[in-house]
């Protein structure tokens, strides 16, 4: 090809290698991807996710969820009471998968560590972690018709109901 001894074969293998690496990088789950464990089965998504995003339990500590479940009859102004079996099952899952649960991942521990021990926040959007992660989002984006409120996770985090909040899966509606 020229005086340096570079052949088309060299170039072809370079292109192939770069392409293969790009594919692997694109598909590999990044270690820092925001993925939270979710309750098994459909009860959580059906009951809690009926009116809002099925928020990942790992976004709040267990004490927050216990308070919330104890006050379901007045859940942000609405009666969201559940039948006993669902109530017990959901509470158990929330406690197990909470930000301060025994199996919490690094991200969940960071969330938990940023919440004062004497506080049991009820709104995820008021936690330090949420504010830090969304500080670049201007107000007019939240006000778009399909988003409406920062609590509408699933509007942009399209796989939020599966516990997936990774940046690469964000799709901000127009």
């Amino acid at each position, binding site marked *: 090809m020229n005086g340096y001894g570079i052949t088309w074969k060299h170039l072809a293998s370079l292109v192939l290698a770069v392409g293969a690496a790009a594919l692997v990088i694109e598909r590999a789950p990044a270690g820092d991807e925001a993925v939270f464990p979710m309750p098994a089965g459909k009860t959580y998504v059906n009951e809690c996710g009926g*009116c*809002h995003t099925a928020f990942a339990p790992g976004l709040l500590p267990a004490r927050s969820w216990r308070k919330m479940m104890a006050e379901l009859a007045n859940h942000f*102004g*609405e*009666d969201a009471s559940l039948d006993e079996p669902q109530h017990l099952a959901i509470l158990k899952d929330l406690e197990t998968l909470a930000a301060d649960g025994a199996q919490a991942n690094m991200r969940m521990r960071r969330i938990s560590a940023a919440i004062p021990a004497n506080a049991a926040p009820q709104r995820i959007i008021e936690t330090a972690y949420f504010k830090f992660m969304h500080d670049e989002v201007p107000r007019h984006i939240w006000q778009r018709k399909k988003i*409406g*409120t920062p609590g*509408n996770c699933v*509007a942009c985090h399209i796989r939020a109901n599966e516990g997936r909040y990774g940046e690469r899966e964000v799709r901000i509606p127009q």
Partner: protein
Amino acid sequence: MKRLIPLFALCIALPAAAQTPQLILDSLVAKAGPASVARGEQLYRAKSKAGKTADSCVACHTDNPKAVGQHVKTFKGIDPLAPVAQKDRFTDPAKVEKWFKRNCQEVLDRPCTPQEKADFTAYMISVK
């Protein structure tokens, strides 16, 4: 063989749990009386002064039961209500009762009567 009996029973019970909108309407009519599509539509569109978050069904479900709705407070998208547009609507009696309970309480501040449920369901089925 004895151990298989529950299995057979399950095979019969499982398909029975999934129903059609017409079967659900029939069982509501059995508790109330003949259903009225017109009264159902009236209920769907009526404004209520008792509503805390939403003042009517249409507040979240929109004027058109075939359209995708949106919760007025959480902004979550809501699948269309009419079975013609969303085929799993009115096929699970427990789900139907759950949402009548939640939403009648929310909008009307009281449970819906069996007649209202029958009328409402008849209207939704009538939407083509």
